[in-house]
């Protein structure tokens, strides 16, 4: 009788172990997706969700990663740092193994500490603030977009060699992203002997910028550099044109968005903006865009391909690592090249993308055209 109980006990405990293992094998790999999915900047964030969904569906159709299906956990931060920390805490407690996001620099910075403490790889499709990788503070952070300093260097060299400016005004929206870009342009311009006559932040969302536009006119500059996003850029451009100022206006990829041209209309003509190199001839990019149209019935928006590449690189690294262990994923991201819509990419020691960069665009006849 006693032996019988023992056998039963052993069998029961074995069953528990098997059951647990079974549950583990059938479980999913949870991947967090965080960014602005509502609010002012939702048009920057939603394409990332769509991209992550498409790549995850792709993997899941082929049986997932190492036999486990991918499950996306989506958290909205509206590009606001205080909401980003909330989103990060939620993702950590949902036990995700890695995060795709966030979208805006300020929000990403706020969330990164939480991910670092929880050993979560974070890969952003659009966060370009340089110190996030270069300071070495966040070894868990990767991005599939070149950092602002690459962008700023390109903008300055374009101003100097193509537009031959001697004196510029640099404005920004006081945000991490815009101010970061503006400061780098200022440094770079001054190092190359260009005078920065005006360096100022303006209030984002204000209805009127005519005072600062007067100030630009008074400073008699050859060009205006704007670090920030498109809503303010279109008001600035419009109010400059209203006052009869026709000097070049150059900005960053926060402006290189078709929404800018739609909103600024005829005032957008001639505006320069740096943005990620055109990938429209890449076969994988063409396929990704076609998939997006099929799945969501619309053209993908900003950073879609970057997000697509981010998801691919991340899933590939998890597959190559053979586990969801933090150190193994980090090592796999840095040592493997992946074919993505952005090209053949990998990551350097600091987490910046290798194999993809920036170009200068100009708004011509209602479209941003890449200047070669």
């Amino acid at each position, binding site marked *: 009788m006693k032996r019988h109980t023992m056998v039963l006990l052993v069998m029961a405990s074995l069953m528990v172990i098997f059951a647990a293992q079974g549950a583990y094998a059938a479980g999913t790999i949870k991947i967090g997706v965080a960014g602005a999915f509502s609010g*002012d900047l939702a048009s920057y964030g939603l394409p990332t969700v769509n991209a992550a969904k498409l790549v995850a569906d792709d993997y899941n159709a082929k049986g997932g990663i190492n036999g486990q299906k991918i499950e996306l956990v989506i958290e909205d931060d509206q590009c606001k740092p205080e909401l980003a920390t909330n989103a990060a805490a939620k993702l950590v407690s949902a036990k995700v193994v890695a995060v795709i996001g966030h979208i805006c620099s300020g929000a990403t910075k706020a969330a990164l500490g939480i991910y670092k403490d929880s050993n979560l790889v974070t890969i952003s499709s659009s966060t370009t603030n340089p110190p996030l990788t270069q300071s070495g503070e966040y070894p868990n952070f990767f991005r599939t977009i070149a950092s602002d300093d690459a962008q700023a260097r390109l903008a300055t060299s374009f101003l100097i060699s193509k537009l031959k400016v001697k004196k510029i005004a640099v404005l920004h929206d006081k945000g991490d992203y815009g101010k970061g870009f503006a400061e780098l342009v200022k440094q770079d311009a001054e190092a190359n002997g260009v005078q920065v006559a005006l360096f100022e932040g303006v209030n984002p*969302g204000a209805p009127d910028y005519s005072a600062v536009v007067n100030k630009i006119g008074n400073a008699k500059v050859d060009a205006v550099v704007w670090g920030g996003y498109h809503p303010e850029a279109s008001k600035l451009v419009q109010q400059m044109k209203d006052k009869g100022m026709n000097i070049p206006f150059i900005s960053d990829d926060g402006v290189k968005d078709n929404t800018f041209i739609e*909103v600024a209309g005829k005032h957008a003509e001639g505006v320069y903006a740096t943005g990620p190199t055109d990938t429209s001839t890449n076969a994988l990019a063409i396929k990704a865009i076609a998939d997006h149209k099929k799945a969501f019935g619309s053209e993908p928006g900003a950073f879609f391909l970057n997000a697509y590449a981010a998801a691919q690189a991340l899933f590939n690294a998890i597959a190559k690592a053979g586990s969801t262990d933090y150190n193994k994923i980090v090592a796999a991201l840095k040592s493997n090249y992946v074919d993505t819509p952005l090209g053949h990419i990998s990551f350097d020691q600091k987490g910046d993308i290798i194999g993809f960069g920036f170009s200068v665009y100009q708004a011509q006849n209602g479209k941003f055209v890449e200047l070669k």
Partner: protein
Amino acid sequence: MDYFLKLFLSGTAKGSIYALIALGYTMVYGIIQLINFAHGEIYMIGGFTALILGGFFFSKGMPVGFVLLFSVLLSIMYAAAFGFTIEKIAYRPLRGKPRLSALISAIGVSIVLQNFVLLAQTEKFLPFPSYLPEFSWLQPYKEYINSTQLIILVTTAVIMVLLTLLIKFTRIGKAMRATAQDMHMAQLVGVDVNQVISVTFIIGSALAAIGGVLICSYMGQINYYIGFIAGIKAFVAAVLGGIGSIPGAVLGSFVLGWTESLGTGYISSDYEDAFAFIILILILLIKPDGILGRSQRQKV
């Protein structure tokens, strides 16, 4: 001097933008002592309605003048209806309750309306067509002031005068003042307080819609969030001028506009908001009821 003049004029233009919104704020406060936080949202809804109606009429091939007139008139009526309804639903049941309840209700309405437009319309920034004419005679002075700024300035002045006349010299104006002074007493002598307050909200919301159309035409864009930012600045302007006072709201807005513009021009736009709030604190220290505000004795 030329530079000063330019900055002064852009401050004036900016002030008249704030004033257009502050007028409605201050009027509602003057009558029922409620800070109507939803006022900024009514302004945004006015702009959106004009955009949608304008697009609709335009697509039907109607002439520009007609489109302008009808979309603006209808959006004013729509916004006024909105104001009327909000008062009925969100403020009237709280009348006589602690003032804080109505304030929280107003904040709630503001959030609801923002999200309503976000969901029902779009999260994107939309281009707002300039419905307003360009004056060719103003072209030589375009560095100083443009047509839209001038129209906003004139509209603000006209509205200020009309409102003052309305409150000082008409029957409903008298009823409004009576309600403002003592709601119960006004009721006792036969003033229909509910009607007076409804009219106040209708006028205030119509003003917000006029502001919405004009300011959106000036900015060339619209978004569900514009009401919040504009509302806060207009609120500051109204407090600065003495909340409840109609000329005060306009004066406060101009002081705010000039401070911001001159501060930006001579010091730095980085501190634009700091200038605005420093001037607010200074004026409130000297005159706690605002520039033109009258101190109200607490009735015991």
